[in-house]
């Protein structure tokens, strides 16, 4: 493994340096039919699940075949995507914000061939490589974060939880039999790189134990004032403490103390100070939220609400998680009206009915007690249902 230089010279880092050039311009990559008709599209339809047709003023049609991807992709897998794009689409493809891959062709026949081809591609272990779907009133790919694969603060895994939920809901990815689209998202901790807080159904990794304190090392690794300031509930204060080090010396150290009963386990202190880890096998798990959306259609965008306060981590296949999500999806599919998103349905029937119909248990953990916004979620009327 000899080191091979690309031409970069560490002794003269500024020599020939190119910086701040930004991304490639998108027009370098548009398929010809897209470039030609850009800004001149008339309408679209979903010809069949996973296949969209867009009609342009010129009379041109573009057929898009959408297939799901696992987000975490090897270069070998991406090269296969490139091969498919070369074979069917003149070397062009795109990705969607929900980690689907879209291949574009100009006739329905080509689209149908392509759909069949994609659905026929299987992994060596039997699963699909490029399952076609994710359109219309169905369940599309679950956007997610890094989880145990690559992140330092997760309370659960992301790729694994998403894999089991999409295995469970696979048919709904390939079909369009929901009342409206159902957007499921996954974030492996409260930081929410995945911003799941406005999804029809959200899977959220959550810690339940206050941080441990690595007294001996804390002052070496952290700025104590930053750690103190990081706590949104003011539960951390600076202290001096007499400790016995790993090597057995008695020593007075600068460190912090935590008022544990105040902690809401956000992990922000750990982000600022690595000597305050809070991950734990039993403490960590999942919160399920439901009823959020980002679209302005019919009703305003809304936040997801906590409907299950805790599900334990059950790797590798998280059976309780899959079951709970199936329960919500099935009840919604049966009970909601056409065009009604999960949140609109829950508001129409009332959240008391939501819990009754889905069979989810309501507990004190679903009543908000965090700052001002909590008050606006309590019921201030006699208009309730028994």
């Amino acid at each position, binding site marked *: 493994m000899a080191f091979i230089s*690309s031409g970069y010279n560490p002794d003269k880092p500024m020599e020939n340096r190119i910086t701040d050039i930004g991304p490639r311009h998108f027009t370098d990559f*548009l398929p010809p039919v897209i470039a030609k008709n850009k800004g001149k599209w008339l309408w679209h339809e979903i010809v069949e699940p996973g296949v969209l047709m867009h009609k342009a003023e010129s009379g041109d049609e573009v057929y898009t075949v959408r297939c799901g991807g696992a987000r975490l992709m*090897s270069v070998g897998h991406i090269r296969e995507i490139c091969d498919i794009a070369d074979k069917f689409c003149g*070397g062009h493809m795109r*990705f969607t914000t929900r980690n689907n891959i879209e291949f574009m062709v100009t006739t329905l026949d080509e689209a149908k061939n392509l759909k069949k081809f994609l659905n026929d591609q299987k992994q060596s272990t039997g*699963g699909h490589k490029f399952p076609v779907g994710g359109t219309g009133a169905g369940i599309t790919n679950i956007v997610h974060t890094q989880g145990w694969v690559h992140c330092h603060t997760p309370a659960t895994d992301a790729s694994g939880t998403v894999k089991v939920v999409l295995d469970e809901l696979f048919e709904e990815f390939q079909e369009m039999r929901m009342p409206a689209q159902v957007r499921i998202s996954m974030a492996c901790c409260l930081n929410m790189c995945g911003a799941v807080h406005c999804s029809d159904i959200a899977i959220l990794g959550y810690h339940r134990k206050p941080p441990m304190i690595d007294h001996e090392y804390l002052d070496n690794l952290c700025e104590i004032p930053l750690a103190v300031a990081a706590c949104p509930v003011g539960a951390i204060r600076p202290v001096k403490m007499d400790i016995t080090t790993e090597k057995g010396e008695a020593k007075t150290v600068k460190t912090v103390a935590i008022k544990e009963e105040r902690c809401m386990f956000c992990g922000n202190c750990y982000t600022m100070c690595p000597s305050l880890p809070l991950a734990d096998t039993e403490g960590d798990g999942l919160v399920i939220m439901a009823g959020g959306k980002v679209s302005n259609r019919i009703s305003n965008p809304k936040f997801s609400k906590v409907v299950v306060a805790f599900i334990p981590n059950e790797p590798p296949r998280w059976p309780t998680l899959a079951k709970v999500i199936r329960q919500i999806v099935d009840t919604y599919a049966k009970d909601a009206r056409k065009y009604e998103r999960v949140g609109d349905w829950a508001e129409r029937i009332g959240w008391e009915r939501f819990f009754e119909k889905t069979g989810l248990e309501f507990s004190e953990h679903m009543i908000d007690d965090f700052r001002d916004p909590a008050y606006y979620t309590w019921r201030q009327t006699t208009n309730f249902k028994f």
Partner: protein
Amino acid sequence: MAKHQTPLLDQLQSGPWPSFVTDIKEEAERRHKNEKNVEFQIPVDVCDDLLGVLELSYEQGRTHWKHGGIVGVFGYGGGVIGRYCDQPTMFPGVAHFHTMRVNQPAGKYYSSEFLRQLCDLWEFRGSGLTNMHGATGDIVFLGTTTPQLEEIFFELTHTLNQDLGGSGSNLRTPATCLGESRCEWACYDTQELCYTMTQEYQDELHRPAFPYKFKFKFDGCPNCCVASIARSDMAFVGTWRDQIRIDQEAVAAYIGGEIAPNGGAHAGRDWGPFDIQKEVIDLCPTECMWIEDGKLKINDRECTRCMHCLNVMPRALRIGNDRGLSILVGAKAPILDGAQMGSLLVPFIKVEEPYDEIKEIIEGIWDWWMEEGKNRERLGELIKRQGFQRLLESVNMKAIPQHVQEPRHNPYIFWKEEDVPGGWKRDINEFRKHHLR
């Protein structure tokens, strides 16, 4: 023979959905075979060790990635995220496993030629594993070692004409929907605006000078496919302010059942024949539509452009011609002060090159936030802490009813001294002449 036994992860190889475990295993195998004789610049068994450490996490229910670490490329403060394994002896292949964020092309279109170049680079100098794509849209290169960072950057810029994205307390890689490239509802060229703003603010993208992260997202219409309204400090959402264009013949075709409603999105189930009254007119949130003499009428002045009727009848109804965008600010996920939705700041602005009006708003907000924002305080939190009025001052805007859902409930109005005739300075002795102690 696999380097590590992974009985737990192996259970994620069953089921119909593509398995990331299978994919990583196959990549591990390809690296060992190395049919193209690539001189790998990081350990050949990096994928095996990643599976090994992940299996350990599956056993213990805890991550094994250490906290950050400062690595990057010269002159940049963002784009690279340091990552180290906390069991480097057990898994030396991933002892150093840094992420690089690569700025994705707007709309995420690719040529296979460009993608293959990225793959070649990442196979040679990295783990060969990626995220397509990260949450802010970046192409995410997962896992390389420190000596490779400058080499990868050199290769990206010199050969691929391509830059890194954002991370840390700076402008994050701006993200956009596919816009006019393939959508009839795009009210402006989202890709062009996203690209232009990305170029304009390269300094803010690469050199952290902000209190915390800052996200731009560009949505072509109020359907908000990139979730700009919920996920970005500044959301640019396309809209129009004239009439929805109606093709009455197509309306009749929808009523007659010749065209499937909602673009055929409900084809998987029998919902009965299309009923325009029930499915469109009665669901209109402003009740601004009706049928008269067999024709669909819209009182556009009352329309709030929610998109429902356009979504249901894309062949009959089209967005207006006087197009632009709305700007909403301050959205964020819950950390730290609870989740916030974007709040409407600019109801309508034309999208015209060189976009000076838009830049003025951005820079006014940044000046205020950089001056007043606390460490790790998102724009939305600053707006909450100091008030919407301060936000308006930062961009020299007058308050209008569009800024609120409803006026304030409490009369605790913070009048300013200059608002009150005679100001606040008064003479107590003069007052006492008429009011005994």
